[in-house]
Protein backbone atom coordinates (compact mmCIF):
# COMPACT_ATOMS: atom_id res chain seq x y z
CA UNK A 1 0.00 0.00 0.00
CA UNK A 2 1.44 3.34 -0.95
CA UNK A 3 1.33 6.72 0.75
CA UNK A 4 -1.74 7.77 -1.23
CA UNK A 5 -3.69 4.75 -0.05
CA UNK A 6 -2.72 5.52 3.53
CA UNK A 7 -3.84 9.06 3.02
CA UNK A 8 -7.24 7.97 1.76
CA UNK A 9 -7.68 5.42 4.54
CA UNK A 10 -6.85 7.92 7.27
CA UNK A 11 -8.99 10.68 5.76
CA UNK A 12 -11.91 8.30 5.54
CA UNK A 13 -11.42 7.35 9.17
CA UNK A 14 -11.43 11.00 10.14
CA UNK A 15 -14.66 11.56 8.23
CA UNK A 16 -16.29 8.59 9.92
CA UNK A 17 -15.26 9.82 13.34
CA UNK A 18 -16.69 13.24 12.55
CA UNK A 19 -19.92 11.57 11.49
CA UNK A 20 -20.12 9.75 14.81
CA UNK A 21 -19.08 12.75 16.91
CA UNK A 22 -20.99 15.70 15.52
CA UNK A 23 -19.27 18.04 17.92
CA UNK A 24 -15.97 17.77 16.09
CA UNK A 25 -15.35 20.95 14.14
CA UNK A 26 -11.90 20.15 12.94
CA UNK A 27 -9.70 17.09 12.90
CA UNK A 28 -6.37 16.10 11.52
CA UNK A 29 -3.65 13.56 12.08
CA UNK A 30 -0.07 14.52 12.68
CA UNK A 31 2.62 11.89 12.40
CA UNK A 32 5.77 12.04 14.46
CA UNK A 33 7.77 12.89 11.35
CA UNK A 34 5.57 15.92 10.68
CA UNK A 35 3.21 14.65 7.97
CA UNK A 36 -0.36 15.96 8.18
CA UNK A 37 -3.41 13.96 7.17
CA UNK A 38 -6.66 15.87 6.97
CA UNK A 39 -9.71 16.37 4.84
CA UNK A 40 -8.96 18.34 1.69
CA UNK A 41 -10.37 21.65 2.88
CA UNK A 42 -8.30 21.47 6.04
CA UNK A 43 -5.10 19.87 4.78
CA UNK A 44 -3.49 22.98 3.37
CA UNK A 45 -5.05 25.35 5.84
CA UNK A 46 -2.69 27.76 7.61
CA UNK A 47 -4.31 27.03 10.99
CA UNK A 48 -3.68 23.31 10.56
CA UNK A 49 -0.04 23.85 9.67
CA UNK A 50 0.47 26.30 12.51
CA UNK A 51 -1.17 23.90 14.94
CA UNK A 52 1.01 21.07 13.69
CA UNK A 53 4.18 23.13 14.20
CA UNK A 54 3.07 24.18 17.64
CA UNK A 55 2.32 20.59 18.61
CA UNK A 56 5.62 19.31 17.33
CA UNK A 57 7.42 21.82 19.54
CA UNK A 58 5.33 20.76 22.51
CA UNK A 59 5.96 17.07 21.82
CA UNK A 60 9.72 17.69 22.00
CA UNK A 61 9.45 19.47 25.33
CA UNK A 62 7.03 16.86 26.73
CA UNK A 63 9.88 14.38 27.17
CA UNK A 64 10.14 15.85 30.69
CA UNK A 65 6.94 13.97 31.60
CA UNK A 66 7.57 10.91 29.45
CA UNK A 67 6.26 12.25 26.14
CA UNK A 68 2.89 13.54 25.08
CA UNK A 69 0.14 10.94 25.49
CA UNK A 70 -2.86 13.23 25.77
CA UNK A 71 -3.44 16.94 25.63
CA UNK A 72 -6.65 18.78 26.41
CA UNK A 73 -6.96 22.51 25.91
CA UNK A 74 -10.10 23.82 27.51
CA UNK A 75 -11.09 27.06 25.82
CA UNK A 76 -14.01 29.39 26.46
CA UNK A 77 -15.67 28.46 23.16
CA UNK A 78 -14.40 24.96 22.58
CA UNK A 79 -11.78 22.33 23.26
CA UNK A 80 -8.80 20.84 21.55
CA UNK A 81 -8.04 17.24 22.22
CA UNK A 82 -4.81 15.54 21.15
CA UNK A 83 -4.32 11.81 21.55
CA UNK A 84 -1.21 9.84 20.79
CA UNK A 85 -2.01 6.65 18.90
CA UNK A 86 0.97 4.55 17.88
CA UNK A 87 3.22 6.90 15.92
CA UNK A 88 0.54 9.51 15.33
CA UNK A 89 -1.32 12.30 17.04
CA UNK A 90 -5.00 12.72 16.43
CA UNK A 91 -5.92 16.38 16.86
CA UNK A 92 -9.56 17.34 17.21
CA UNK A 93 -11.14 20.71 17.84
CA UNK A 94 -14.59 20.36 19.32
CA UNK A 95 -17.45 22.53 20.44
CA UNK A 96 -17.59 23.49 24.10
CA UNK A 97 -20.20 20.89 24.99
CA UNK A 98 -18.53 17.95 23.32
CA UNK A 99 -18.32 14.77 25.34
CA UNK A 100 -14.55 14.39 25.50
CA UNK A 101 -14.68 11.01 27.22
CA UNK A 102 -16.96 9.65 24.49
CA UNK A 103 -14.71 11.12 21.80
CA UNK A 104 -11.66 9.51 23.37
CA UNK A 105 -13.42 6.17 23.61
CA UNK A 106 -14.40 6.29 19.95
CA UNK A 107 -11.02 7.37 18.65
CA UNK A 108 -9.26 5.03 21.05
CA UNK A 109 -11.02 2.10 19.42
CA UNK A 110 -11.32 3.14 15.78
CA UNK A 111 -7.86 4.47 15.12
CA UNK A 112 -5.80 1.62 16.54
CA UNK A 113 -8.01 -0.81 14.65
CA UNK A 114 -7.58 1.03 11.36
CA UNK A 115 -3.85 1.39 11.88
CA UNK A 116 -3.49 -2.27 12.72
CA UNK A 117 -5.41 -3.18 9.58
CA UNK A 118 -3.23 -0.92 7.48
CA UNK A 119 -0.12 -2.39 8.99
CA UNK A 120 -1.34 -5.89 8.26
CA UNK A 121 -2.07 -4.99 4.65
CA UNK A 122 1.26 -3.34 4.10
CA UNK A 123 4.12 -5.63 3.32
CA UNK A 124 7.26 -4.12 4.72
CA UNK A 125 7.83 -1.09 6.90
CA UNK A 126 5.06 1.40 7.45
CA UNK A 127 5.69 4.48 5.35
CA UNK A 128 4.29 6.68 8.10
CA UNK A 129 7.05 5.80 10.49
CA UNK A 130 10.13 7.97 10.16
CA UNK A 131 12.85 6.16 8.34
CA UNK A 132 16.06 5.80 10.27
CA UNK A 133 18.54 8.32 8.99
CA UNK A 134 21.58 6.53 7.66
CA UNK A 135 24.13 9.03 6.39
CA UNK A 136 25.03 8.08 2.83
CA UNK A 137 28.55 9.35 3.11
CA UNK A 138 31.01 8.37 5.72
CA UNK A 139 30.96 11.28 8.09
CA UNK A 140 33.89 12.53 10.04
CA UNK A 141 33.35 11.78 13.71
CA UNK A 142 35.00 14.21 16.10
CA UNK A 143 37.75 12.27 17.83
CA UNK A 144 36.97 13.57 21.26
CA UNK A 145 33.34 12.75 20.96
CA UNK A 146 33.73 9.23 19.66
CA UNK A 147 33.87 7.41 22.99
CA UNK A 148 31.17 9.40 24.70
CA UNK A 149 28.61 9.57 21.93
CA UNK A 150 29.25 7.07 19.18
CA UNK A 151 25.77 7.49 17.74
CA UNK A 152 25.75 11.29 17.70
CA UNK A 153 24.87 12.59 14.21
CA UNK A 154 27.92 14.40 13.06
CA UNK A 155 26.42 16.62 10.42
CA UNK A 156 24.32 18.38 13.07
CA UNK A 157 25.70 21.29 15.10
CA UNK A 158 28.30 19.82 17.36
CA UNK A 159 26.54 19.69 20.72
CA UNK A 160 27.56 16.37 22.25
CA UNK A 161 25.72 14.42 24.90
CA UNK A 162 27.78 15.82 27.74
CA UNK A 163 25.50 16.32 30.73
CA UNK A 164 24.18 19.84 30.87
CA UNK A 165 24.79 21.89 33.97
CA UNK A 166 22.24 24.02 35.79
CA UNK A 167 23.84 27.29 36.83
CA UNK A 168 22.65 30.48 38.45
CA UNK A 169 22.74 33.63 36.38
CA UNK A 170 24.95 36.48 37.50
CA UNK A 171 24.63 39.44 35.17
CA UNK A 172 27.63 41.66 34.58
CA UNK A 173 28.46 44.64 32.41
CA UNK A 174 31.17 47.19 31.87
CA UNK A 175 33.35 48.80 29.25
CA UNK A 176 35.82 45.95 29.10
CA UNK A 177 33.22 43.20 29.11
CA UNK A 178 33.05 41.11 25.96
CA UNK A 179 29.41 40.75 25.04
CA UNK A 180 29.90 37.27 23.58
CA UNK A 181 31.76 35.66 26.47
CA UNK A 182 30.32 34.13 29.61
CA UNK A 183 32.20 32.97 32.68
CA UNK A 184 31.75 29.73 34.63
CA UNK A 185 33.66 27.97 37.40
CA UNK A 186 36.94 26.37 36.41
CA UNK A 187 35.60 23.18 38.06
CA UNK A 188 32.77 23.04 35.57
CA UNK A 189 35.14 23.54 32.63
CA UNK A 190 37.45 20.85 34.02
CA UNK A 191 34.58 18.40 34.44
CA UNK A 192 33.44 18.91 30.86
CA UNK A 193 37.01 18.66 29.62
CA UNK A 194 37.47 15.37 31.49
CA UNK A 195 34.33 13.98 29.89
CA UNK A 196 35.67 14.99 26.50
CA UNK A 197 39.13 13.52 26.93
CA UNK A 198 40.79 16.78 27.80
CA UNK A 199 39.24 18.84 25.02
CA UNK A 200 39.25 22.57 25.79
CA UNK A 201 35.81 24.06 26.05
CA UNK A 202 35.66 27.22 23.99
CA UNK A 203 31.92 27.78 23.66
CA UNK A 204 28.74 26.86 25.48
CA UNK A 205 25.05 26.80 24.68
CA UNK A 206 22.86 28.43 27.31
CA UNK A 207 19.16 27.60 27.53
CA UNK A 208 16.77 29.61 29.64
CA UNK A 209 13.53 28.64 31.41
CA UNK A 210 11.58 30.07 28.53
CA UNK A 211 13.42 27.91 26.02
CA UNK A 212 15.60 30.72 24.61
CA UNK A 213 19.08 29.61 23.65
CA UNK A 214 22.28 31.52 23.07
CA UNK A 215 25.73 30.27 22.11
CA UNK A 216 28.64 32.14 23.71
CA UNK A 217 32.34 31.84 24.21
CA UNK A 218 33.26 30.74 27.68
CA UNK A 219 36.10 31.29 30.10
CA UNK A 220 36.62 30.75 33.79
CA UNK A 221 35.24 33.20 36.34
CA UNK A 222 37.77 35.99 36.82
CA UNK A 223 36.66 37.13 40.25
CA UNK A 224 37.86 34.59 42.83
CA UNK A 225 35.13 35.69 45.26
CA UNK A 226 32.51 34.35 42.86
CA UNK A 227 34.09 30.95 42.33
CA UNK A 228 32.47 27.75 43.57
CA UNK A 229 28.97 29.20 43.82
CA UNK A 230 27.48 27.49 40.80
CA UNK A 231 27.24 30.77 38.91
CA UNK A 232 27.38 31.61 35.26
CA UNK A 233 28.32 35.25 34.67
CA UNK A 234 26.48 36.43 31.58
CA UNK A 235 26.95 39.83 29.91
CA UNK A 236 23.93 42.08 30.04
CA UNK A 237 23.22 41.84 26.32
CA UNK A 238 23.21 38.05 26.38
CA UNK A 239 20.89 38.16 29.41
CA UNK A 240 18.48 40.23 27.35
CA UNK A 241 18.62 37.72 24.50
CA UNK A 242 17.93 34.89 26.91
CA UNK A 243 15.29 36.90 28.76
CA UNK A 244 16.86 35.97 32.08
CA UNK A 245 17.65 37.98 35.16
CA UNK A 246 20.17 37.65 37.92
CA UNK A 247 19.37 34.71 40.16
CA UNK A 248 17.48 32.64 37.61
CA UNK A 249 18.61 29.17 36.61
CA UNK A 250 19.81 28.30 33.12
CA UNK A 251 20.99 25.08 31.54
CA UNK A 252 24.50 25.17 30.09
CA UNK A 253 26.13 22.69 27.71
CA UNK A 254 29.56 22.78 26.13
CA UNK A 255 29.93 23.00 22.36
CA UNK A 256 32.53 20.82 20.72
CA UNK A 257 34.02 22.02 17.46
CA UNK A 258 34.29 19.42 14.72
CA UNK A 259 38.01 19.90 14.09
Amino acid at each position, binding site marked *: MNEEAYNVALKTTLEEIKNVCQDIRWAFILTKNGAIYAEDDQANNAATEKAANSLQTLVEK*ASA*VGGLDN*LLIDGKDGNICVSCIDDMYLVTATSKNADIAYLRNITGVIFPTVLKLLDNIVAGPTPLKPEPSHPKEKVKVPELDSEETPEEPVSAPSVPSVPSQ*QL*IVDKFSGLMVKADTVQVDQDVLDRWAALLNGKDIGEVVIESFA*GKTVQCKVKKIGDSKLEGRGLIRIPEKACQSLEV*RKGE*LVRVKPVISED
Partner: protein
Amino acid sequence: MPKRKVQEVEFAEEIDAPRVEAGNPAPDMRSRLEHVKSRDGVIGYILRASTSASVDVKDPSKIIDYAILSAAALESGESLSRGFSLGKVNSILLEGKDAKILSMTVGEQKISVFMEKSVNHSLIYKDLK
Protein backbone atom coordinates in the same frame (compact mmCIF):
# COMPACT_ATOMS: atom_id res chain seq x y z
CA MET B 1 23.42 27.46 51.92
CA PRO B 2 24.19 31.14 51.46
CA LYS B 3 21.37 33.62 51.89
CA ARG B 4 20.87 35.85 48.93
CA LYS B 5 18.98 39.01 48.21
CA VAL B 6 15.64 39.15 46.41
CA GLN B 7 15.89 38.20 42.73
CA GLU B 8 18.53 35.65 43.52
CA VAL B 9 18.05 31.95 43.87
CA GLU B 10 17.37 30.70 47.32
CA PHE B 11 17.30 27.00 48.00
CA ALA B 12 14.95 25.63 50.59
CA GLU B 13 16.46 23.70 53.47
CA GLU B 14 15.41 20.34 52.13
CA ILE B 15 17.86 19.41 49.41
CA ASP B 16 15.28 17.41 47.55
CA ALA B 17 12.81 20.26 47.39
CA PRO B 18 14.48 23.34 45.99
CA ARG B 19 12.56 26.55 45.59
CA VAL B 20 13.66 29.14 43.09
CA GLU B 21 12.29 32.59 43.52
CA ALA B 22 12.75 35.81 41.64
CA GLY B 23 10.86 39.00 42.34
CA ASN B 24 7.78 39.19 44.48
CA PRO B 25 5.26 36.40 43.81
CA ALA B 26 1.62 37.08 44.55
CA PRO B 27 1.05 35.92 48.15
CA ASP B 28 -2.52 34.69 47.62
CA MET B 29 -1.68 32.44 44.70
CA ARG B 30 1.49 31.29 46.42
CA SER B 31 -0.45 30.13 49.45
CA ARG B 32 -2.96 28.35 47.25
CA LEU B 33 -0.12 26.64 45.42
CA GLU B 34 1.46 25.63 48.71
CA HIS B 35 -1.86 24.02 49.64
CA VAL B 36 -1.98 22.26 46.27
CA LYS B 37 1.57 21.03 46.69
CA SER B 38 0.67 19.42 49.98
CA ARG B 39 -1.72 17.09 48.15
CA ASP B 40 -0.57 13.53 47.57
CA GLY B 41 1.05 13.00 44.20
CA VAL B 42 1.75 16.64 43.42
CA ILE B 43 5.32 16.94 42.19
CA GLY B 44 5.64 20.69 42.18
CA TYR B 45 4.58 23.94 40.61
CA ILE B 46 5.81 26.88 38.60
CA LEU B 47 4.27 30.31 39.01
CA ARG B 48 5.23 33.06 36.63
CA ALA B 49 3.95 36.62 36.70
CA SER B 50 5.11 39.58 34.64
CA THR B 51 7.80 40.52 37.14
CA SER B 52 8.13 37.47 39.33
CA ALA B 53 8.64 33.74 39.24
CA SER B 54 8.40 30.98 41.78
CA VAL B 55 9.36 27.35 41.28
CA ASP B 56 8.92 24.54 43.75
CA VAL B 57 9.73 21.11 42.33
CA LYS B 58 10.70 17.97 44.25
CA ASP B 59 13.39 16.83 41.82
CA PRO B 60 15.92 19.65 41.32
CA SER B 61 17.36 18.09 38.18
CA LYS B 62 14.02 18.57 36.43
CA ILE B 63 13.45 22.23 37.21
CA ILE B 64 14.51 23.57 33.84
CA ASP B 65 12.89 20.79 31.83
CA TYR B 66 9.63 21.42 33.68
CA ALA B 67 9.96 25.18 33.25
CA ILE B 68 10.52 24.81 29.52
CA LEU B 69 7.60 22.41 29.22
CA SER B 70 5.40 24.76 31.22
CA ALA B 71 6.23 27.68 28.93
CA ALA B 72 5.75 25.53 25.82
CA ALA B 73 2.37 24.21 27.03
CA LEU B 74 1.02 27.68 27.73
CA GLU B 75 2.35 29.04 24.45
CA SER B 76 0.98 26.10 22.41
CA GLY B 77 -2.34 26.37 24.20
CA GLU B 78 -2.66 30.04 23.27
CA SER B 79 -1.49 29.40 19.73
CA LEU B 80 -3.90 26.50 19.11
CA SER B 81 -6.74 28.38 20.71
CA ARG B 82 -6.16 31.34 18.39
CA GLY B 83 -5.87 29.04 15.37
CA PHE B 84 -9.16 27.29 16.05
CA SER B 85 -11.01 30.26 17.56
CA LEU B 86 -11.52 28.69 20.97
CA GLY B 87 -11.45 31.96 22.86
CA LYS B 88 -9.70 32.41 26.17
CA VAL B 89 -7.90 29.30 27.39
CA ASN B 90 -9.21 28.09 30.75
CA SER B 91 -6.73 25.29 31.26
CA ILE B 92 -4.30 23.00 29.52
CA LEU B 93 -3.85 19.43 30.64
CA LEU B 94 -0.89 17.53 29.22
CA GLU B 95 -0.46 13.88 30.12
CA GLY B 96 2.78 12.00 29.60
CA LYS B 97 3.78 8.46 30.43
CA ASP B 98 5.31 9.47 33.77
CA ALA B 99 3.40 12.51 34.91
CA LYS B 100 0.92 15.17 33.91
CA ILE B 101 0.88 18.94 33.98
CA LEU B 102 -2.03 21.30 34.48
CA SER B 103 -1.37 24.82 33.20
CA MET B 104 -3.54 27.88 33.36
CA THR B 105 -3.43 31.64 33.36
CA VAL B 106 -5.03 33.47 36.26
CA GLY B 107 -4.93 37.21 35.71
CA GLU B 108 -1.35 37.90 34.75
CA GLN B 109 -0.05 34.82 36.51
CA LYS B 110 0.87 31.73 34.54
CA ILE B 111 0.68 28.58 36.61
CA SER B 112 1.75 25.02 35.96
CA VAL B 113 1.27 22.21 38.45
CA PHE B 114 3.11 18.94 37.91
CA MET B 115 1.60 15.80 39.36
CA GLU B 116 1.46 12.06 39.15
CA LYS B 117 -1.06 10.68 36.70
CA SER B 118 -3.29 9.32 39.45
CA VAL B 119 -3.96 12.79 40.91
CA ASN B 120 -7.41 14.27 40.34
CA HIS B 121 -6.49 17.42 38.42
CA SER B 122 -10.05 18.77 38.58
CA LEU B 123 -9.64 19.35 42.31
CA ILE B 124 -6.41 21.21 41.70
CA TYR B 125 -8.06 23.30 39.01
CA LYS B 126 -10.79 24.24 41.46
CA ASP B 127 -8.22 25.13 44.11
CA LEU B 128 -6.45 27.54 41.81
CA LYS B 129 -9.24 29.09 39.77
